[in-house]
C-alpha cells in the first residue's frame, strides 16, 4: 500500500501530471503504467519505478534505446535536444553502457541487441545496427537481421561461429536463392577457412539436391580431385556402359591435371581399360558370365573358371599381377570349381611362390580337408603334424608327431580324433615316444 502511494505520488507530480486514482492504478496494472510512461518518453522515471517495484526493466530499456536511435538521427531536426547527429559510435556506446549498467541485454534478461539493431537498421542507420549486433550473443537472432541488412559475409561467418548447422543452412539457402551463382561461390571462397564448414555443408546439400551446382562449384574453385571424384561417383551409378566409360575417362583427365595425383590418374585409367576388356569378355562367353563390375582379381578368377586360361595369363601380364597374387587367385578359382586334377597340375607346374601351406589352409577353410591332405607332404616338416590334424588326417598326423617325438602333438591328435580305432593306434604311438 505504501509502495503504491509512493508510485502514485510520483506520477501526480506536476512535471509529470498523471492524476491517477488508486483504483485506476490497480485496474491498469503497474506494467501498463510503465508503458504509458515510456510512451511519454519518461524513461528515467519508468526505470526508477520498475526498480522500486522489482519489475523487469527490459521493455523500458528497449523503448529508450529505440527512442534514442530515432532522436539522434544524423542530420535530423537541427538544434533539437539530445545532441542530434551524434555519431554511431557514441550512440552505440551509450546504449551498451546503459544496458550493461542495468544488467540487461545479453547475459541475463530479455532485451536482445538484435531487436534494437533492427530498429536502427530500419531507421537507416546500418553502421549503428552493425555495432549493436556485435553485442548480440545469440546467433539465431543475429543472423536473420544480418541477412536482411545484406551483410552476407558476416551473416555466414556468424552462422558458422554458432556451431549450429541448421543456421548455416538457413544462410546458405537464402544466399543461394538471392545471389547470382558466381557471387554466391565467391562469397564462400573469399570467406577462407573461417567459413570452410559452410562450404562443406553446401557440398553435402548439393550432392543430394543439385549436382550441377556442385560441379560448377568444384570447377570454379579448381578442385580437380573433387571434380574427378564426383565423376567417378556418377560413373558408379550409370547403367549404360559407354556412359560409364566416358565419365571414367573424364574423371581420369581431372586427376591427371593434378601433378600429385599421378597414382589416382593411373588407377582410373586402368579401371576404364578394365571396363572395356570386361565388355569384350562378356561377348566372348556370349553373355553367360557377368564380367562387368568385377575387380581385376575377380575377373581373372572368372576367366579361369570360364576356361579362358589364356586370357587370365594375359591379364596377369597387363595388370602386372605379382606371382604370389596370381598363384593365390588360381588356387582360389580352382578350389571354387573343385577342379582337383587341374589344381594338382598347377601346383606342380613350378615351385609355388607362396609355398604349399596356403594350399592346405585354403582347402581346409573351404571344407575340403581330404584334398588338402595331398599338399601337406610338400610343406615345412616342422608344421606337417599340425597341418595333417587340420585336414582331419589323424594317422598321418600321428606319424609326423612320432617322427619328431612330439608327445603333446600326439595327445592333441588323440583328443581330436573321432574314431576309436585310430585313437587306439595313436595311443600306441604315444606310448612308444
Amino acid at each position, binding site marked *: 500500500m505504501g509502495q503504491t502511494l509512493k508510485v502514485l505520488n510520483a506520477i501526480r507530480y506536476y512535471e509529470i501530471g498523471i492524476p491517477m486514482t488508486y483504483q485506476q492504478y490497480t485496474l491498469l496494472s503497474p506494467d501498463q503504467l510503465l508503458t504509458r510512461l515510456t510512451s511519454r518518453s519518461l524513461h528515467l522515471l519508468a526505470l526508477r519505478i520498475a526498480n522500486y517495484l522489482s519489475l523487469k526493466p527490459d521493455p523500458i530499456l528497449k523503448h529508450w534505446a529505440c527512442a534514442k536511435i530515432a532522436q539522434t538521427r544524423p542530420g535530423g531536426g537541427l538544434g533539437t535536444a539530445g545532441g542530434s547527429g551524434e555519431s554511431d559510435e557514441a550512440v552505440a556506446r551509450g546504449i551498451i553502457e546503459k544496458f550493461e549498467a542495468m544488467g540487461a541485454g*545479453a*547475459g*541475463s*534478461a*530479455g532485451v*536482445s541487441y538484435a531487436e534494437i539493431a533492427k530498429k536502427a537498421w530500419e531507421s537507416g542507420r546500418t553502421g549503428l545496427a552493425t555495432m549493436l549486433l556485435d553485442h548480440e*550473443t*545469440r546467433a539465431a537472432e543475429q543472423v536473420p537481421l544480418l541477412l536482411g541488412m545484406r551483410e552476407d559475409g558476416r551473416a555466414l561467418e556468424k552462422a558458422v561461429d554458432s*556451431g*549450429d*548447422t*541448421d*543456421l548455416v*543452412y*538457413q544462410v546458405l*539457402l537464402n544466399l543461394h536463392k538471392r545471389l547470382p551463382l558466381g557471387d554466391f561461390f565467391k562469397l564462400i571462397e573469399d570467406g577462407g577457412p573461417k567459413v*570452410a564448414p559452410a*562450404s*562443406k*555443408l553446401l557440398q*553435402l*546439400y548439393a550432392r*543430394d*539436391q543439385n549436382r550441377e551446382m556442385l560441379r560448377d562449384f568444384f570447377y570454379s574453385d579448381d578442385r580437380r*580431385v573433387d571434380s574427378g*571424384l564426383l565423376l*567417378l*561417383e556418377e560413373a*558408379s551409378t550409370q547403367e549404360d556402359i559407354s556412359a560409364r566409360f566416358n565419365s571414367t575417362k573424364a574423371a581420369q583427365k581431372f586427376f591427371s591435371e593434378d601433378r*600429385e595425383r599421378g*597414382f*589416382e590418374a593411373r*588407377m*582410373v585409367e*586402368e*579401371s576404364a581399360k*578394365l571396363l572395356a576388356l570386361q565388355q569384350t569378355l562378356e561377348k566372348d562367353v556370349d553373355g553367360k558370365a*557377368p564380367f562387368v*563390375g*568385377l*575387380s*581385376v*582379381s*575377380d575377373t581373372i*578368377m*572368372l576367366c579361369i*573358371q570360364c576356361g579362358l586360361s589364356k586370357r587370365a595369363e594375359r591379364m596377369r601380364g597387363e*595388370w602386372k*599381377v*605379382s606371382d*604370389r*597374387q596370381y598363384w*593365390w*587367385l588360381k588356387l*582360389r578359382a580352382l578350389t*571354387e570349381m573343385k577342379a582337383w586334377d587341374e589344381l594338382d597340375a598347377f601346383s606342380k607346374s613350378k615351385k609355388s611362390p*607362396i609355398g604349399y601351406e*596356403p594350399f592346405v589352409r*585354403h582347402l581346409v577353410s*573351404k571344407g575340403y580337408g581330404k584334398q588338402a591332405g595331398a599338399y601337406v607332404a610338400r610343406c615345412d616338416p616342422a608344421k606337417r603334424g599340425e597341418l595333417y590334424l587340420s585336414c582331419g588326417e589323424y594317422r598321418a598326423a600321428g606319424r609326423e608327431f612320432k617322427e619328431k617325438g612330439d608327445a603333446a602333438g600326439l595327445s592333441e591328435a588323440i583328443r581330436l580324433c573321432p574314431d576309436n580305432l585310430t585313437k587306439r593306434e595313436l595311443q600306441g604311438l604315444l606310448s612308444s615316444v
Partner: protein
Amino acid sequence: MPASVNSDDTSVKPEESGIDVLALKELAKRSLLEALNSVNGSKTLVLDPSLVGPLGLVTDVAFLKQNGLDKMFWLESGPLNAPTPNIVYLCRPKIKYAKIIADHIRKHTAAGDKHIYTLILTPRTSTLISQVLEEEGVLGEITILPYNLQFIPLEDDVISLEHENAFKEIWLDGDETALYNSAQALLTIQRLYGLFPRILGKGEHAERLARLLIRLNSQQITTPGLPVSQGVSEKIDSLIIVERRADMVTPMLTQLTYEGLIDELVGVSNTYVELPANIVSPPSQANTSGDTTSQALNTTPVQAEKKKKYQLSSATDPLFKELRDVNFAVLGSLLSSTAKRLSSDYELTHLEDLVAEGADRRTILRMMVLASVVSGGIKVKQLESLKRVFLQTYGYELLPTLLSLESLQLLQSNPLPPSQAHLPSMKLPFTALRKQLRLLIEESEGGTDAMPNDISYVYSGYAPLSIRLVQCVAQMNAVLASFNASDSGKGKGKGKDVSQASEMPKMNAHPIVGWKGFEDVINTIPGPTVDITQTGIESKAQGPSLFPKEQSTTTVVFFLGGCTFTEITAIRWMAKRTRGRRFMIATTGVVSGNSLIESLLPAAKPKTAKVAGGSS
C-alpha cells in the same frame, strides 16, 4: 531395471549412482508422447529405419498403441497405404526422407486420397528439410514438429545419442551437426545435475564442443521459463571429452572382450544382434515383464530375412553382465599384436598376402590405417604398391575410400607430398606415447587375462590410448604403474570368473586436477588441450575439489565420434578399481573398426555379382 544385480561391491545401485539413466529414458519417452499427442486421433506412424533401434530402447509398441498408434511402416520409397487419416512421419532430418515423403503426398493427392500429414523430426526441425519439401512443392501440406531425442540409456552406466556415422560426418564431411547435438544433450545433463565443475579434453573438436557447451549454457539463461541450473554440480566432478579422431589406433584393433568380439563378428546395433533364426534359441528367461522390450518395435510389416533379433543387455540376460567385459584372448589374438609389429616391411608384405587371400576388405583397410598411424606414414613406394593391389583385388570403385582415408590423415605416405606438407598434421607421436603412457604392456606386467591389473588386459597387452587419456585425469597412478597384484598371484588358473576382480585392490579417487603431471605428454598429441573450470553463477565458497571423501562423485566421459565396447569395458575396469568415483560413459554411438571403415565405403549397390567366393 536390472533384477539380477548381485551384491558384490562392483555393481552400482541405480539410486546411488550419480546419474540416473532411467530419468533420461523417461525424458525421452515423455517428449515422444508429447510429440505424438499433438496429433489427435488414431494415426499411422511411418518410421525412419535408423530410429527403430534407438526408439526401441526408450519405448515399445504397446506404449505407442496406447497412444493412438494404429499401424507402423518403414519410411522407404514405394507406395504408402495408410488406414488412418492421420499420417505421422518420424525421422532424422535427411534429404532422402524428405523426398520420399514428398513422393507419398503427391501420390495420395493424385489418387484423391486425403490425409493429414505431420512430420516429426529428431532431434529438432531443420531448415534444410523445409527447403527440400518446398522445392518438392509439398511444404504446405505438412506440419513439422521437433522431437528432442537426446541421450538414450544402453546400460546403467552407458548413455548414447545413437547417432550413426558421427565420425564420418564430423571428420570427413565436415558436417558438425552431431557435435551441436552433443552439446545440446550435455546441456540437458547440466540442467539436471548442475554444471560440470571441470571440462577436460584433447583435440580440435573436443575443444569446439567444450566452447559450444559453455556458450549455449550462457545463452539459455536468456530464455525464460526453462529450469536452469547455474550452480556447479555436486554429483558430477568433471566431464572428459575424448574425440574419436585423437585415437584411431584403438578402434582399428580387433576387440577381444566378449561384447566387443560379438560386435566384431556379427555387429551390434542399438544393443541388438541380428542372428539367423536357427542359431538363436528363443530367449526363454523368466522375463515376463521385460518381454515387451525384447520384441520392441519389431512388429513392422516389412520383414526382410529370416533373422532374429536378440538383445544383449544385462537386463535381459544375467549371464551377459558377467561375460560382457571378459577378455576372450584365448580365441587368438588376431590383430591385437599388430600395433607392435606392423612397422616393419615384412608386415606390409604379409598384408599383400592377406589381400591375395581375399580377406575382408575392412580388415585390410584397418591394418593399413594401423600401419600408417602407428608408424607415422608408409613409404611412398610401399604405399602405392599396397593401394594398387588393394584396388585390383577389391575393385577400383574403392579409390574414393582410399582418398577419404588420406584426407582424414589415416592413410598417409611418408614423406607427404609437397601440397599436403603444410597442412596441420594430426600425426600421432606413437613411439613416444607408447613409452610415456605405457600403451604396450608385457603380459606378465599386466596380469593375466583372467586376473588383470591394468586396462591393457582388454587388448591382451595394449592399453587403449583413449582410456589412458581418461586415466591421466581420473586415475593418475594407473598411467604410471600397474596395480599391484602381489597378493593375487596364486589365482593363475584360467578361471573366467570376473567377480574375482572385486578382490583386487581399490584406490581412493583423487580430486580432479586436470592434466596435471601429464601436460608434456598431452601436448605432444596434436590438437588443443582443453581444461576449463566452470564456477557457475552462485559459486559456493568451496572449490569443486574439496568434496567430502565419503561421497562418491561421477566422472562423465564423453566420446565424440563414438566409442567401442572394449573402451566401455576399460572404463568399467577403472570404476572397479576406484573407491569414491563412478564413471558415466556417454557417446555419440557405439562403433567398431568395421563400422567406422564401413561408413567410408561407397554405398552398397543394389546388384552385386559374386564370384569365386569373391570380395565381400
